[in-house]
């Protein structure tokens, strides 16, 4: 973390719920009438989030952050967003994630040599995809650094986007399967999934009935291996799909052999045990 002033320290304690009540009240009263102080609070919040996503918090502060600050859903969304937007290319944490694509875009804008190479690449790419975005990119480029030649920069950023997309999403092939509960094991209608070579994700859409829960839990068992439980997914939420309320579960295919599987879905309430919703069956076979 950057060195903290006394005010910063007070603001961070406030955000982590560690200020004594009287100090908290005083601070709130102050920031309601003092825009600069409130600005500092927002800065402290940004800094805290940034330090969290970059692994710069001490273990104690990190734990406090997760147990207090992240209990608000919109704060979790903000952390997710900043994790993606603000993470530096050279990650401070050992499990560095791929560089976000937009950093590549900016890098292209800022590096004249790459701009020239990218121009060639953009010409080679061509196609509708590039054409659709050219208008927006031209506008983007109006904002780019003045030292870059406009034409070269336009082409450069286009190629940068293409390159970055590959970095962000990586090679993946996804299969999708919609399942309803009540299809019993071994029934004729039991769904079969033929997995072609290269497919690495099976996206299940589970019909979860009319009753809504704040959260859902799904577990995957291998019926061909004495019902061994392979994966448990918590923190799932439902969305309203074409067939009603649905829960999405993405299964990594790499670790799933050809076998019969069962997914068990349960609804979770804030203060109650999981409520069984249904069991879903499918057979998975690898393409020869």
């Amino acid at each position, binding site marked *: 973390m*950057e060195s903290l002033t006394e005010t910063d320290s007070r603001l961070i304690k406030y*955000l982590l*719920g560690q200020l004594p009540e009287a100090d*908290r009240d005083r601070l*709130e*009263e102050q*920031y*309601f*009438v003092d*825009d600069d102080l*409130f600005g500092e609070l*927002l*800065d402290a919040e940004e800094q805290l989030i*940034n330090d969290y996503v*970059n692994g710069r918090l001490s273990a104690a502060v990190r734990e406090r952050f*997760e*147990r207090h600050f*992240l*209990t608000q*859903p*919109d704060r*979790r*969304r*903000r*952390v*997710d*967003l*900043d994790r*993606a*937007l603000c993470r*530096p290319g050279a990650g401070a944490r050992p499990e560095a*994630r791929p560089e976000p*694509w*937009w950093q590549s875009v*900016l890098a292209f804008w800022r590096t004249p040599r790459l701009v020239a190479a990218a121009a060639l690449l953009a010409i080679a790419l061509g196609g509708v995809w590039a054409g659709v*975005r050219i208008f927006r990119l031209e506008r*983007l480029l109006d*904002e780019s650094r003045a030292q870059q030649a406009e034409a070269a920069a336009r082409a450069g950023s286009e190629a940068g986007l293409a390159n970055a*997309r590959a970095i*962000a*999403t990586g090679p*993946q*092939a*996804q*299969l*999708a*399967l919609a399942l309803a509960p009540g299809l019993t094991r071994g029934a004729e209608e039991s*769904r079969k999934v*033929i997995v072609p070579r290269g497919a690495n*994700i099976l*996206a299940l*859409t589970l019909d979860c009935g009319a009753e809504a829960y704040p*959260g859902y839990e799904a577990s995957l068992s291998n019926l061909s291996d004495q019902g061994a439980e392979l*994966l448990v997914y*918590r*923190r799932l939420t439902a*969305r309203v799909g074409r067939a009603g309320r649905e829960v999405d579960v*993405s299964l*990594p295919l790499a670790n799933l052999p050809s076998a019969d599987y069962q997914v068990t879905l349960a609804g979770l309430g*804030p203060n109650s045990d999981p409520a069984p919703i249904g069991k879903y069956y499918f057979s998975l076979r690898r393409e020869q």
Partner: protein
Amino acid sequence: MSASPPRKPWVLTRETFDQLLVRLHPDRDRAGEVYELLRLKLVEFFKARACLAPEDRADEVFNRLGRRIAEGEVIENLPGYCYGVARRVWLESLKGPDARRVPFEEPAAAWPAPEEALEERARLECLEQCLRRLAPDEVRLLFDYCADGERPRKEARREQAERMRISMTNLRLRVHRTKLRLEACVTECREQGPKKLKYI
């Protein structure tokens, strides 16, 4: 003694909202900014006190404020007054469902690893789509705002504000506004489920 009928919730009308804006600042554009900043303070206040639906609570404060204004009450220090109303709304919330609230979600660190990787990928894909919907100057605003260079962050932001010829407060508001739109877009994108490439 007969029980009084339940009070109908008072809702801010357009006319009262206009009156509120005039109280905030004589210039309407500037009043809009002051309103937005005040609302942001309210939301932060309710978040810090672990209230459910902090945005709704903030709106409730404005409803009450609008009602006072419509009734002709003279309010000298509007932000300070707002703070007082916010405290009352918070105290009332302690008698409601918030008081029995138990954090439902597990901390982020407990998320299962296999899903996290997939979630991360899906999030990035949605983020990419949503960033493309923003205007270029908004994209640049966000990138520049979170640039984590060698200089202290505060200094970098001050320079950004100077470059844009706006105040630091205005810069923060713009970033906040843009992030809110981006978050809403990403959330909507995520709720629509993963892009299905092949059906069996």
